Every structure is written in structure tokens, then in C-alpha cells.
């Protein structure tokens, strides 16, 4: 099943009246359950592409379909609900709500979805245990290391069993070992729960561990290799 379908997606930014093309007609299909990475030099359009798939940014031209829903037709509120139910995000850093504990940050998503307190608690505790944070759940983000914070972010992204998790350079602020551990956790979730993952990265370790590598350059896909 096709989870993400991009057709001729173009994105131009306006900067001081000058048109800056970030994506120049990208077509891409990501199947359900893939564990894929976007690579490419800085400025090649990786973040832009993830943002468009996540409904955080709108393409200038082309169509985007996520899990069967065409994003271009949605209102801001519908986009918010879409992100809430179908998409998990992991950003480079500062992913968490600073005044909420690790557990509360994870519960937050379930709360927005209207789950009962008991179920919220159980599910949040279960995913935090899966990412290895069972002993640190009550800590506030600033009381956790960068790697631990990223693991909370992963837990939050997967807790509501979304169709897809988009992660923009999730390991960029982590050391090699911590980054590898985070990748292992995400891969495990991918295999165990069938959640689709799409990364952007400069990190060879991430490229190596992903099962499909899509290379961008100057707003175009230049290579696309599957390792499976």
C-alpha cells in the first residue's frame, strides 16, 4: 500500500522578492512499513520535503497524498487533526514541551486524541519503557540528556500508532553511539508495529541503517536505492 504519494511537487520560497526553488518537481512513492532516509547536501530540500509531507508547509505545485488523504484540500484545523492522528514528528532538537515531564509529553498526544486517563497512562508508560526510559519518566526535559530527550520524542511520535513518523535529522545533535541506539529503537518500532519511517540526514550511520536511501540535490531526486 502506498503511504505517501508525491506527484511533481514544486516548492518556491520568496526571499526579498526573489524566487528560491527548493523543490523542482519531486515525484515519490513511499510504501507502508518502509524505513527510508532522505540524504543530500545542505540546501538540497530535505527539510522542505518532510515539512510538505507533514502538512506543515504547502507545495507551490503538485499533489501530496498521505495515507489516502490529499493534503492540499485540507484547512489548517483539518491539517492539525491529520498531524495529530496520522503523523508523528521528531525534530533535530527541542522537541518537547519544557514544563511537562517525559511521561506527560508522551501522554499529551493521547490527551489531544481524547483518550481516557487510565489508557493514556498505560500506553505512555509502555512506549517509554520500549525506548528504555522506564526510570526517567517523571523527569522534565531539561533534566534529561539530549539522547534521552530524543528518545522521549520518538516515544511521543509513535505512541498514538501513527501511519508515519517523519524525522528531520533526529541524530544530528547526538554522539555516534547514542544516535545508533536511537536508530535501533526506531527500527524496532518499524518492525514491531509496522510504522513507516522517513528520515532526513547527513549521518552515514543513519543512511546505512535505513532500508531505502533517496538522494536529493538542488531540489531534485538524483538517486533512489532500495537495500532490501
Amino acid at each position, binding site marked *: 500500500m502506498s503511504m505517501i504519494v508525491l506527484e511533481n511537487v514544486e516548492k518556491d520560497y520568496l526571499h526579498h522578492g526573489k524566487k528560491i526553488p527548493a523543490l523542482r518537481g519531486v515525484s515519490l512513492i513511499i510504501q507502508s512499513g518502509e524505513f527510508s532516509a532522505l540524504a543530500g547536501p545542505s540546501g538540497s530540500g530535505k527539510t522542505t520535503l518532510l515539512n510538505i509531507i507533514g502538512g*506543515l508547509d504547502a507545495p507551490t505545485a503538485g499533489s501530496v497524498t498521505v495515507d489516502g488523504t490529499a493534503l492540499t484540500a485540507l484547512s489548517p484545523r483539518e491539517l492539525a*487533526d491529520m*498531524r*495529530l492522528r496520522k*503523523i508523528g514528528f521528531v*525534530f533535530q532538537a*527541542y522537541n*518537547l*514541551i519544557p514544563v511537562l515531564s517525559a511521561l506527560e509529553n508522551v501522554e499529551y498526544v493521547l490527551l489531544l486524541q481524547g483518550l481516557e486517563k487510565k489508557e493514556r497512562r498505560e500506553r505512555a508508560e509502555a512506549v517509554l519503557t520500549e525506548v528504555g526510559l522506564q526510570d526517567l519518566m517523571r523527569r522534565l526535559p531539561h533534566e534529561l540528556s539530549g539522547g534521552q530527550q530524543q528518545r522521549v520524542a520518538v516515544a511521543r511520535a509513535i505512541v498514538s500508532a501513527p501511519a508515519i513518523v517523519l524525522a528531520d535529522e533526529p541524530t544530528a545533535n547526538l554522539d555516534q553511539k547514542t544516535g545508533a541506539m536511537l536508530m535501533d529503537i526506531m527500527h524496532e518500532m518499524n518492525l514491531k508495529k509496522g510504522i513507516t519511517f522517513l528520515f532526513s540526514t547527513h549521518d552515514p550511520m543513519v543512511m546505512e541503517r535505513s532500508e531505502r536511501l533517496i538522494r536529493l540535490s538542488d531540489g531534485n531526486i538524483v538517486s533512489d536505492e532500495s537495500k532490501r
Partner: protein
Amino acid sequence: MKIFFLIGWRNLWRNKRRSLVVISSIALGIFAMMFSMALMNGLNNQMVENTISTSLGHIAVQRAGFQDDMKLQNSFSPSETALQSLEQTPGILAYAPRIQLEGMIRSSEASRGVLIIGIDPEKEKSVSGIAEYLLPDQGGTFLLNRGDRELLISKTLAEKLDLMVGDKAVILFQDVDREISGAALNVRGLYQSPIDSFDKYVIYTGLDTLAKMAGIGNRISRIVVRTENRDAVDPVAAHLRAAVPDPGIEILTWKDMAPNLLSAVALFDAMMYIFFAIIFTTVVFSIANVLIMAVMERFHEIGVMKSIGTRPVWIGAMVVFEAVNLALAGLIAGVVPGLLLVGALSVTGIDFSFYMESVRVWGTGAVVYPSIKPMDVWVSALIVMGTTLTAAVYPAVKAARIKPLEALHFI
């Protein structure tokens, strides 16, 4: 949603100093508001009460037209029915006859225009405060009976006329036939009421003495009635009017007789609200300012919240909750000491004697007893909440409209 209240609450404590500044300014605002309301209530209350206990009483029964033209020709003899109704109407505590006429008092030193009131001393004690205003340390006493041929004048007037207890003074006026009538009477006692203008103008003598001099036989000017509660005079007056269906008689409440007193109270209240409006307009801007700073500081995390699916309204609600938390904290910090202070002062009173003369002009007396009604507390709380919510609108809308993408870039 509870979580946004929780986030709002915790956000409050991220910048403790800033929040405390806002909380204490709200607290100070409501404290000042409660205090000035209570003081104003006390002043108004005493102004009304003093006017009632010096001159008005609660209800007057008099000849129709007397209120507009208080001449001797408008005096009357109360009918049996009228007197009976006064006895039988529920809510009436006491009543007393009065004769009043304009005249002059003259000592060897000077003379003044005055209002001469003839009273039945025993009955007068139960409808007005005049017996309590007597100054025993000046050597005098209150009048004893309605036939007394003696005078009660104020200390102020005594000083102006250079009179002391026991001195003779002459009163002069036109009797009912417009003939000059007069007598030389001894000053029996001196009084001081809380109302300066009253003291300068009013003197008392025996009811029968004045009736005889005025040539009105057994007629009187009015019957002054005291009821159980000055705020519940209307039903009593209505009852009386029904019981005495005489078009030649008018039955008026203190509100009818002194509409300017009511409008003075209303004016003071209005002034107070304008004052509050000014204070709280400045509070609106300071709260709004703090909230905008708070929103800008959290630009990135609001972006995160939005990108993981929080609806814009909830972001706005979070800011509003934060404002509500500030207001609640400020309310509690202001209302509790406010109630304690007002409660204490309502017992001890605030002594303005150092300021006495000007306070006496307002007719409130030197010691003011602030009083606060539950309603006032609710109104203050409502004003503070309303102010805070108003202040929160712009920051909340601004936060709700933050574009997640821009906010995520902003670290």
C-alpha cells in the same frame, strides 16, 4: 482541557519574578479597589444615616404641600386614624411630632437666621440622634418635656453667638398670622451633630412652647417616623398611605424628601467606577505586555505543540488559562488581606479627626466605618477577571496564529 490549564499554570512559574510582579499588581489593584469601595460605602452609609438621624427620619407624615412650602400655614392636626395607623403599622419603631419654622436667634453679640424646631423631648429621643449629640461636658442637659421654655443649640452656633449654657438668647419669627413673635429663652444644652451645616442652622425648644408662640394651637408641622430598616421604608410608607387615605396628608420617605442625597451617593459610586476603570486600563496593558513576552519566549515550543497536532484554539486557550491563573493568584492575594483589613476597620473605624472639619462638611462624622458587601467583593473579582481576560485576547490570538514552521526555525 485540563492539560492546558496545567501547562498555563506551570508556565507561570518559569519566570517567577515576572509572574509575581503581575500577581502583586493585580492583588494591589483589587486590594485598593476593595478598600476604596468599603470606605466609600462607609462614607455614603454614614452620610445617609447622619442625615436621617439629624433631620429626616425615615418617614414623614405631614400636610400635603408641606414638603414644597414649609410655612406655618401648612401645619396640621393629625387625625385619630393617622395616629392609630402609626401605632399599628408593622415595621414602625417610633414616631414623634415636630414643629419647625424659620426665624432668628439673637444674643447680645450677634444674630443668626435659624430653623427653630419644637420637639417632644422624650419622643424625639426615639426618632432622631439629637439627644445623643448633646455635649454633657458643656454643662447642659437635654430638654425634659414639651413645655420647656429653653433652648438647645449647637456648640458651633454658641461660639458664634458667644453663648454658654444658662445664658439668655432671643428667638424671633413670624407667627401664623404674620405677626412678629418672640421670647427670651435660656440655653439649656449644647449639641454637636456630625453635620456642620446642620449645626449652624438648627436650634430646638419645647413643642408646646413653640406652638403657643406661633399661634397654631395643637397643630404641628409633621410627624417623624422611625422604622426598623431605612432600606425597607417603601413598604411601610405604602402601608401607611393605604391606612390613611386622606388626600390632605402626604406621607414621604427619606428618599422622597432628600433626592439629592441619593444622587450624591450615586455620583460617588460613579466616580469610584471611573477611578477603577482608569486603574484597570493600565493593568490591562501591563498584563497584555507580560503575556506577549511569554508567548514570544515560547515561540519554538508553541511551534512544536502545533506541529504535533494541537489546534490553534487550544494554544489560545493555554494563554488565556495562564492569564486566568495570574488573575486567580492575584485575586486571592488581594481579596484575603483586603477582607481582613476591611473587617478589622469596620469594627475599629478610621478616625479622621485630624481632618475633622472637612469630613464634617460631608456630614459623615469623624470616624468612618468601612463596610464591604459580598456583592462588592464579587464585583471586584469580576472586574479583575474581566480585565485579565481582555488583556489575554490579543496575546492569545497571536499565539494561536503562530505558524508552526516559522516557530520551529526559531530556537
